[in-house]
């Protein structure tokens, strides 16, 4: 990731509460930045602001010096966001879902690569079933399979990626994150999971919890 | 140079100004409406064709004009709020809607009163009345949308978008309704075909228009003050006013 992501003096107000203010940080290639804090402290809101889904009350987020809200698609092509919701259509299979997700995100991936990504996340044999019949953990893994296809996307923003995953899957995803960071990408994430990912360039910012 | 207008773009500074202006315009409104009603009901001559019942136009027409004018003003403030991300503009737009809806309702109601003695029906599908009815729905839709959204920021911005889409559609709606009206020649009655008006009649209508306009300004400013206090109730200046009033 050549250009850094800069968050400048962010202030977030939800409803009537100021969740955080004066928050600034820079994310560069090789950074693994974890946002910590108690429930309700604004972690998800911060991640959404960093993606451009939410406008901060004041302050801005810049990519290469320009506000991401002005860059729009130019920035979003370089972003991979996995939020709380899995973003999977129940009536389609994991393969179909991943194929659509990649195309819409501008990631080029043929059928073989899509299938491989799902196998990588441990979904071999289940990739053609409608997502409706998969368990919570399997659905989360199907959602996270985008990471296996997202090596070329510099910035990953992950909101609670390890939810509903068993230990093996957690290690799997952590490996993907480590790999991405070591190749020069950046990851911004939140989690309640207390294990250290063990990558160089790990940092942590804690939100006070309004 | 002169007044620094931007000074008043924050709720805190606008609040006291709004209060003073509301008082002034309220008084002016009272005076203008009194004068206008006197002109309309006592001075203006009896109409040759419609007798005394035509006098309702002194309320009907100014109310209709204000209803349309206020919608445009509301859309203007909504647009400013969306473009410049200013809180006060959104509050102004929200403050205008109920008054605009009120004038629309008055226009419809008085239009109905006019229709009954003149053409024997309580409602006429005249182009103007039908457009007024749709305008009422536009106002109510705006108010309903804002009421349904809890987050004030989303409510402001969603309402603003709706108001802008509405204001673009108002001329389209008006012309299509006009067209519809001329097509179906059964309803040949028209409230727009007023007889040529004596000067006092025109004067009466104009004075009433000003009266309604001033009332509109006063009502909107007072409502805006309430909205400001409600939205900013966490801040110091709002608490100061609340305590002072108690």
């Amino acid at each position, binding site marked *: 990731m050549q250009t850094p992501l800069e968050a400048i003096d962010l202030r977030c107000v939800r409803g009537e509460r100021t969740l955080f203010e004066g928050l600034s940080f820079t994310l560069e290639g090789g950074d693994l930045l974890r946002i910590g804090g108690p429930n309700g402290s604004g972690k998800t809101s911060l991640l959404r602001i960093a993606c*451009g889904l939410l406008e901060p009350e004041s302050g801005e987020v810049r990519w290469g010096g320009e506000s991401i809200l002005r860059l729009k698609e130019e920035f979003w092509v370089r972003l991979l966001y996995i*939020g709380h919701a899995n973003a999977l*259509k129940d*009536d389609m299979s994991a393969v179909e879902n991943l194929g659509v997700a990649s*195309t*819409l995100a501008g990631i080029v991936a043929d059928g073989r690569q899509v299938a491989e990504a799902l196998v990588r996340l441990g979904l071999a044999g289940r990739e053609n079933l409608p997502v409706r019949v998969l368990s919570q953990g399997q659905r989360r893994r199907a959602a996270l399979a985008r990471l296996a296809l997202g090596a070329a996307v510099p910035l990953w923003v992950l909101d609670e990626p390890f939810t509903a995953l068993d230990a093996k899957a957690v290690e799997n995803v952590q490996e993907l994150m480590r790999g991405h960071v070591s190749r020069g990408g950046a990851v911004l994430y939140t989690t309640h999971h207390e294990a250290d990912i063990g990558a160089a360039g790990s940092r942590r910012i804690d939100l006070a919890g309004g | 140079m002169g007044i620094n207008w931007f000074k008043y773009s924050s709720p805190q500074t606008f609040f006291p100004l709004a209060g003073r202006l509301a008082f002034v315009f309220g008084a002016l409104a009272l005076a203008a409406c009194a004068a206008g009603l006197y002109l309309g009901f006592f001075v203006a001559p009896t109409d040759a064709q419609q007798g005394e019942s035509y006098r309702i136009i002194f309320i009907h027409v100014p109310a209709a004009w204000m209803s349309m004018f206020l919608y445009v003003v509301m859309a203007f403030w909504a647009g400013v709020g969306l473009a410049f991300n200013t809180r006060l503009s959104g509050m102004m737009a929200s403050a205008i809607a109920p008054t605009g809806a009120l004038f629309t309702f008055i226009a419809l109601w008085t239009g109905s009163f006019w229709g009954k003695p003149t053409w024997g029906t309580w409602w006429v599908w005249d182009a103007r009345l039908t457009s007024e009815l749709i305008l009422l*729905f536009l106002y109510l839709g705006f108010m*309903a949308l804002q009421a349904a959204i809890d987050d004030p920021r989303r409510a402001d911005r969603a309402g603003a978008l709706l108001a802008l889409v509405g204001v673009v559609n108002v001329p389209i709606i008006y012309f299509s309704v006009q067209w519809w009206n001329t097509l179906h020649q059964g309803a040949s009655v028209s409230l727009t075909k007023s007889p040529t008006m004596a000067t006092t009649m025109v004067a009466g209508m104009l004075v009433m228009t000003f009266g309604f306009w001033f009332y509109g300004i006063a009502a909107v400013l007072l409502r805006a003050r309430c909205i400001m206090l409600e939205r900013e109730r966490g801040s110091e200046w709002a608490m100061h006013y609340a305590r002072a009033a108690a």
Partner: protein
Amino acid sequence: MIAALRCLILRDLRLAARRSSDVLTVLLFFVIVVSLFPLGVGPDPKLLRTVAPGVLWVAALLASMLALGRVFAADHADGTLEQMMLGATPLGVIVAAKVLAHWLITGLPLVLISPVLALQFDFSQDLLGVLILSLALGTPILSLIGAIGAALTLGLRGAGALLSLLVLPLYVPVLIIGAGAADAAASGLGGTAQLLLLGAMLIVAGVFAPWAAAAALRISVE
């Protein structure tokens, strides 16, 4: 970008095919509403012939409004809408694709079945062409304008009724001109003017509505 659009439209069509009950419900609603009118106003053929265009148009309008709930709601609920907002294609284009798919699923069936229903009203066969064309041009406009309302009311309580209140005033010009086309044809004036006007409205709506709806989506998803 074309690949993304094709992918999105095919996706929506595929999803509709797998949940065909949604689609059929809207169509059935249209048929039932149209059938209710003669029960309400009496079977006099002359009366029915006169009101046929208006009835079909109002029913199409109501069915269209009923269907609007599914344009964005499902995608919003499972998080796919968010992903589209963070994708490589501008949101306005995405919205246009979704509205097109939505019309293919809910609007086009209405247009296709309308001649059958018009015959129920003994509507003159040579005028059927104008009626069908007016619906074919008008229902996409309804979907486009409706998408703005659907985007504004995304996720709100009572969104269905609120959506109707927001969108019906905006539908009025389309209704007047659309129904007016068949009426004019029936009275011998020819419906060409109205059809051309509908075509123009379709183009304008097609250009502006997706962007307004995209702006509304961003406001609603915050």
